[in-house]
């Protein structure tokens, strides 16, 4: 997160964004890109069940329990409390928006008020 606040645009990032847009197109049209009907192999169809949650977890968990490449060693970290509340709120209310709002409601006072 070192470039935060510099507000510099670079060409490489723009190309990656174009690539992500192509991925949006390909994934949303995957089974009707071709005019002929076809099927995925069985293992790939099963894998589709598990890959999305794995991808999210792989991105999210390190962002919550690590800082500067190390597992955090203190419990005084606003992110842990916010994430715990977020998960609890999700399973109580089944609402992603409420998860964000109440999670940030825990995160901001701890982070800004106590400096965690």
């Amino acid at each position, binding site marked *: 997160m070192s470039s935060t606040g510099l507000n510099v645009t670079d060409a490489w990032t723009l190309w990656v964004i174009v690539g992500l847009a192509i991925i949006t197109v390909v994934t949303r049209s995957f089974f009707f890109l071709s005019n002929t009907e076809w099927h995925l192999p069985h293992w790939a169809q099963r894998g589709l069940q598990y890959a999305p949650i*794995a991808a999210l977890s792989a991105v999210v968990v390190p962002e919550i329990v690590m800082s500067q490449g190390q597992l955090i060693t203190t419990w005084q970290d606003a992110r842990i409390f916010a994430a715990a509340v977020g998960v609890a709120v999700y399973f109580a209310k089944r609402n992603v928006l409420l998860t964000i709002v109440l999670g940030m409601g825990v995160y901001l006072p701890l982070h800004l008020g106590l400096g965690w």
Partner: protein
Amino acid sequence: MFWQARLYQHPEFKVGVRDLAPQAFGQIAWALMTGVALVKSGMSVFESVFMTLLVYAGSSQLAATPLIVAGAPAWVVLAAGFCVNLRFVVFSLHMRGYLMHLPRWPRIVTGYFNTDPTYVLFTRRFAHPADNDELRLTQEAYLAGLSFANWTSWISCSLLGIALANAIPTSWGLGFAGILCLLGIQCSLASSRLRVLSAIVAGIAAVLAYALPLKLNIVLAILMAVFACLMAEQLKAAKERLA
């Protein structure tokens, strides 16, 4: 698509817009926060606007942004974005029957605008693909109405979020809202025990392998989680055969 008169003049277009309105309302804060989170995670305003207009997939944008900012190679960012988007592959299999009568490009454009809320509402209203031209047009117009309402509300609120982000100090840590958003989506996907296993394996593997260069820990974590779940499926099947 929704800019075609034959679709937006069809009465079903308005039904689609109306059906999507509550969803769009609930989405306002989410889109706003996505806009804020993109800028606050370290992307430039131009990059954030460019991404919002082109990619049009909130969860993949939020997952890709920390990887881009950390300097991960393009293929790792794209692989992570692809995996987060895999649910759309499942949707596309279902939508195939509704769209195959269209030529290839209109079909693909229709697919591009088909996101989670439009897919859910569309398949709820039309449980089966049409078997005549009139009904096909009706379905197409309804989907166009949904897509139009969803696209305009999502894009305008995201852009507003990007504009507001500059007025908020980075030290507040509002980028964390993006992580909480992904966490919420992650919980919403945890609908079976094996999916929970997938999340646990991926989370642990991503932390343990964090020191790998090029953010390869993300790719390794996804592969290990999917492999573990496929193995667990096999074990379960073998046990059932024995029992």
